[in-house]
């Protein structure tokens, strides 16, 4: 391998390290299409052909069933190809691997965790006959838990429902928040600071003045084809909304201000005059930045504590129902496996001494663990602590692609436990499809 070898991707050195440095534990971050699976498969085949590991000592973990199936097929094809090309001891090792390929663990992270838990249910604190439940059943449990929560909310002595209603929040509208939170059981605390109710007084006069401005403007815009312009219809809507709002009612006023949170798109050519469009966009932006954004944020922070209190109560009911049913969803599998200690190993022992997954837990859990498809770096840098309800979804979605995976569980399981000591960090940057085409 030389630097000037043509037809290789720019990061070929990293790729060679992945497939060739078999004594190191590596963390590889790579985007879709960069060749993670190919490199992983190549490393697995090298482990076998070099005698570093036998197939039964390899665990290859993916995030989706599809990826696992693909990896399994490709690993078989790779071994077949190498058997045909190899000779001597190498051929013998590869032939053995091919013969016992079904002993190689290639599956999803969820089934991997389920396997760990089935072998050590007592240590993991799960029922001996626990079931893995699919999304449909899980959703049904959520719905049942929510119904139970709603049926007791209004009679609970702490008057939680009243607290919500006093902030203009109808409890039944919190179901989606409840669903979001159930997706992230690894967030062990949802901090709720007490934020005082915002003082809307400074915004009232500017909003009234703004209404006068819009009132004069609307006659100019009547009959205009808005096209894709979003500001003009928004002006009509806020003009109406201001006339409907009782300015002394904080709930109504907060709802009115929330209409100004973002600045609508302006298509200047659709306006009677271009300068008018620019001026009106600026006027809207002033209200948005100076009053709406800060006050609405503070209002939401003020609303947040009872929301979280209510939703967590529903989450507790859901957890109880799930436990009663003996079901574990995908997140539970990860969480339980990570928390139970069944995956705790002395890393160096595990890495230097390959062992059978099926017999040696917890001392030698798995010699080589690989993971593909997980947004690891993002996971490492983000620990979920949303302070705003509205921000929660965005915050989470950025760190959790594929299934909604409890990231800290994955970290616990694969970094703290299996791969505690990472010898090398590698980043794949070349799009592998291009490389294949060039070759």
């Amino acid at each position, binding site marked *: 391998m030389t630097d000037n070898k043509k037809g290789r991707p720019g990061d070929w050195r990293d790729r060679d390290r992945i497939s060739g440095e078999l004594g190191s534990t590596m963390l590889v971050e790579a985007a879709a299409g960069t060749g993670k699976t190919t490199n992983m498969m190549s490393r697995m085949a090298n482990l076998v052909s070099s005698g570093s590991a036998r197939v039964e000592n390899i665990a290859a973990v993916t995030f989706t069933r599809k990826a696992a199936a693909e990896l399994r097929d490709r690993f078989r094809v790779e071994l077949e190809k190498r058997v045909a090309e190899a000779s001597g001891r190498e051929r013998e090792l590869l032939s053995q691997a091919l013969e016992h390929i079904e002993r190689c663990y290639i599956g999803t992270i969820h089934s991997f965790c389920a396997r760990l838990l089935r072998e050590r249910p007592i240590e993991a604190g799960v029922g001996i006959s626990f079931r893995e439940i699919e999304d449909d059943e899980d959703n049904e449990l959520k719905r049942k838990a929510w119904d139970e929560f709603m049926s007791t909310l209004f009679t609970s002595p702490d008057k939680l429902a009243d607290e919500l209603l006093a902030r203009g929040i109808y409890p039944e509208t919190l179901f989606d928040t409840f669903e979001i939170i159930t997706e992230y059981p690894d967030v062990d605390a949802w901090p709720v600071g007490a934020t005082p109710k915002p003082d809307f007084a400074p915004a009232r006069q500017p909003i009234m003045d703004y209404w006068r401005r819009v009132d004069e403007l609307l006659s100019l815009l009547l009959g205009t084809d808005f096209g894709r312009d979003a500001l003009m219809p928004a002006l009509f809507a806020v003009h109406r909304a201001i006339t*409907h709002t009782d300015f002394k009612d904080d709930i109504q006023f907060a709802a009115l201000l929330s209409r100004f949170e973002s600045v609508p798109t302006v298509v200047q050519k659709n306006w009677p005059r271009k300068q008018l469009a620019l001026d009106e966009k600026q006027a809207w932006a002033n209200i948005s930045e100076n009053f709406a954004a800060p006050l609405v944020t503070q209002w939401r922070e003020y609303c947040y504590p009872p929301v979280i209190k209510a939703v967590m109560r529903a989450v507790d009911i859901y957890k109880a129902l799930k436990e009663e049913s003996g079901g574990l969803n995908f997140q539970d599998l990860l969480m339980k496996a990570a928390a139970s200690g069944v995956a705790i190993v002395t890393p160096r022992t595990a890495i230097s001494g390959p062992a059978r997954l099926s017999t040696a837990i917890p001392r030698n859990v798995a010699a080589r663990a690989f993971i593909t498809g997980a947004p690891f770096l993002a996971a490492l840098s983000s620990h979920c602590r949303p302070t705003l309800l509205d921000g929660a979804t965005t915050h989470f979605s950025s760190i959790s692609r594929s299934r909604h995976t409890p990231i800290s569980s994955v970290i616990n399981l694969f970094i703290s436990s299996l791969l505690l000591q990472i010898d090398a960090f590698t980043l794949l940057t070349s799009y592998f499809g291009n490389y294949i085409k060039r070759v």
Partner: protein
Amino acid sequence: MAENRLARLEDESLLWSIIEERAAEYRELFPPPSEPVYEAAMENLKRTAKIFIIEESKLDGASAPRYLEASIGLPRERAGKATPLDSPEPVELRLLSGSIRARGRIDRVDALPARGANVFTLWDYKTGGTYKYRSKDPFNQGRVAQHALYIAIVEKALERALKGKSAVAGFGFFFPSPRAGGERLSWSAEELADGKRVIDAICSSVASGSFIATNNCDDCGSAKYQCEYAPICRDVSAVANAADAKLENQSNETLAFQRELRKS
């Protein structure tokens, strides 16, 4: 109610007392779980009523309510002033490929004094949001036909009741809820002229006996407000994609009417 527009200041207190009275009746029938729940529901109702009055007052007599809850082909739902349009008999509407018998309860038939005698417009009150009705195509690919159908029904009922010359000039949805903010979406009869073809395609599609799933999973609602049949479809997106593929298949003649609605 008189034929004139609701006067905001005069009618506000009257409306409050009607709301209180009716709410008290319903409270007996369906006791609320707690006082704050009742108060929150009342607050929402009163805000809706207030938006209604404010928006009505803006019409300023240009559209004057003439007949309320006209029950065409239906018994009157509540005690109230009967209208000349009321009839237990449905009306017969001629379509392109046959005729149908139609009935409906029209929230409001307004006179348009500026357009001449016996020229009317229709209003339908909506408690929800405007999303479904916002499409540039007033029929939203066959999802909305109420406006055209109501115009056709009222035209027939007017013919039957007034015997003389009459016309329905337009139709509007009115959304007085706080969420929808008192918006009105309205169309002239000319803008809805294609309605007969749309209604014909819908009826023909029913008559053909083929009931295909929607080809757009936006119709199935969000996670929060999902269609109650979604659990039957399970993967709604896959079902919608399959339906779309069937509609794309020009040789599938059974779906010709649905194709006309969704793909034309």
